[in-house]
């Protein structure tokens, strides 16, 4: 396989796998946050904060993917 192809594959694995991981984590936290918000709307801020924390994973994945692509 050509080097460009391997790089594209590596970048897609980096962003894809981290996005899936972030998705799984956010699904769990999100459902709990929505339940808390249903009880008391004041939890919106905290709920949102907790829910988006795992997004960092995807951001790291994105950065690695970009580093691979634009090396």
């Amino acid at each position, binding site marked *: 396989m050509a080097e460009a192809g391997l790089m594209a594959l590596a970048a897609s694995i980096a962003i894809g796998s981290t996005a899936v991981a972030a998705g799984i984590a956010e699904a769990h936290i999100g459902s709990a946050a929505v339940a808390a918000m249903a009880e008391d709307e004041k939890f919106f801020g905290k709920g*949102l904060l907790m829910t*988006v*924390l795992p997004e960092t994973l995807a*951001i790291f994945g994105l950065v690695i993917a*970009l580093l691979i692509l634009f090396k």
Partner: protein
Amino acid sequence: MKSYLFSLFPEKMCYVRIAVEKSLKKKLIDTLYDLKVIHIEETNDKEFLKEAKIEQNLETYSDMLLNLESVLKEIKGMDYEIIAIRKPFSTKPLLSEDKVLNYEKYIDDFEKQLKKLKELKDKYNNLNKIYILAERLRKLGVDNLSIIKENKSGLGFILLSLKDKDKFFENLKNLIKEGIISFTIYRDEEENRDYALIIHKGDEENIIKKLNEFIIKKHNIYDIVDYLLNYGNTTKDILDKVVKERAALVYELKELEEKVQKEYKSRQKELEDLLLSLKHIVNKYTQIDKFKESRSLFYVSGYIPCKDKNKLLKALSKISPNVFIEIKEVKKGEEVPVKIEHTRYVNPFKVFLDIYALPKYRYIDPTVLMFFTFPLFYGFILGDVGYGLVLGIFAYILKTKTPKGSIINNLAKVMLLSSASSIFFGLLFGEFFGFESIFGYEFHPILHRMGEIKELIGISILFGLIHINLGLLLGIYQQIRYKEYKHAVTEKFSWILLQISVGYLIYGYLENLPTYHRYVAYMLLILSIGLIYIGEGLKGIFELPSILSNVLSYARLGAVGLSSIAIAYVINVFVERFVESGSVGGYIAAIVLFLLGHTFNILLGIIGPFLHSLRLHYVEFFTKFYEGGGKEYSPYGILKKR
């Protein structure tokens, strides 16, 4: 009006205590209600004071309000909430309390008329139901209902609605040995359904079991007959009777309906004013328990914006010269209601704090900062002249169609500003619905997003560095203001120092600076980590990488925009291919794809940048300084949404 454009803190509040002779109770209540400045705070510090009571009959007003609301809801299905919220800041109830009471009988009569109208409608619907059932049986050959009811012949009757008429017919022929004597079928064109009446002398359950596949439902004919026998013995009699009764009823119904509508239309404004007045009166007296009284004294305490001090004093002096008033500055640590007020352009951005949590009193209110940064981030992500224009038109329509002050209306105003920012960045990026030219005019982008991805992500991260450090600086400012110098250094400045030392270290390696530079950088790094440990303990040490992830998080500003432009690019490539085909079908396909594709992308373009921009504020920015959990300033005299 005073300008609050650059106000970084909630409005300054003062604590106020007012006491009057009990005879002046009503005057004080009315004055404070009309003034709409005092946020009443219940106090239990004076044991001799009991909960205040009023002579006015709150129950009468509440009943009137409930009745009027149900009348208005019934008559037009109208949203009576909107009427009340349309004028929440009117200085006085439109009608006096005594005048309102004059309407008591009027509302009762109106309600009675509506009740009568409802009864007539129910009766009319019932007659229709009888007509349909009698007509159905008549079409199926039944005239004398008592034959079925008395059943002297020992025959059984089954009424069915059919799934498949032809198959039912085929199978029925095979069931003669089961005791079927005859049957009739009738098609109800309105319902688009076939009905069958079977007369048999066999086992009903067995027959149904064998026909089950071809029928929708078995109707209980004996119940239907019982019901119809109340109106007559034969279907013909029933139909004649129902037609006559219905004709008379229609006339009565129409007459009453017209009367009620006419009455409502001629007094619509009056009724709306009455509703608003009632809402104010009920609102005024339901909060009376927040006032206190003793045998001779009437007392209230709470908070007012300090700037309204003179307004309050002037209004109270009109009640009596003997009013006891104490106005003082609030103490540190006191839980004070928060009033956030800015200019009319900045005010809509308050909606983001309403959704999240209001800041505590004395802590920074970032509304004015969001006024600059939210549209900036939004525009940077969307960055397309065409999308910006569509979004602007959409936001403008939404703004004009929604009630002023509502969450949607405020969001529409925010979106309007964000669309202007999108157009600005669209010009910088040279994009119009993803195209790089518009009607033959080539854009000359300052930053070509698809071609200069590295630069785009770099600028995004630079935005992040500035935004996060602005948050930290605000945190330092806030803590210095309250003389919490140690916290300012260990919890806020330490993070800035951490960034400087890491940056210095990297720069030193990249530029091959003399070794002592690295030592200085390492020392700064150790110092910053030490300060973080002192300020935040082990938690702070574990969270060291969070500053990196926070900054990198801003890469989304470029990345989300890239995904939007990539979608637009793919749509345009296909559109161009269809156009190049030159055929009529190709042109039609191009137009459909262009409209559908870009509509989809605009929808994504509205939601994506909005959520990502908001998230950067809530998660990355607010966490550096924001103290949420403030209590909303809610002055006595303002109607609350229910």
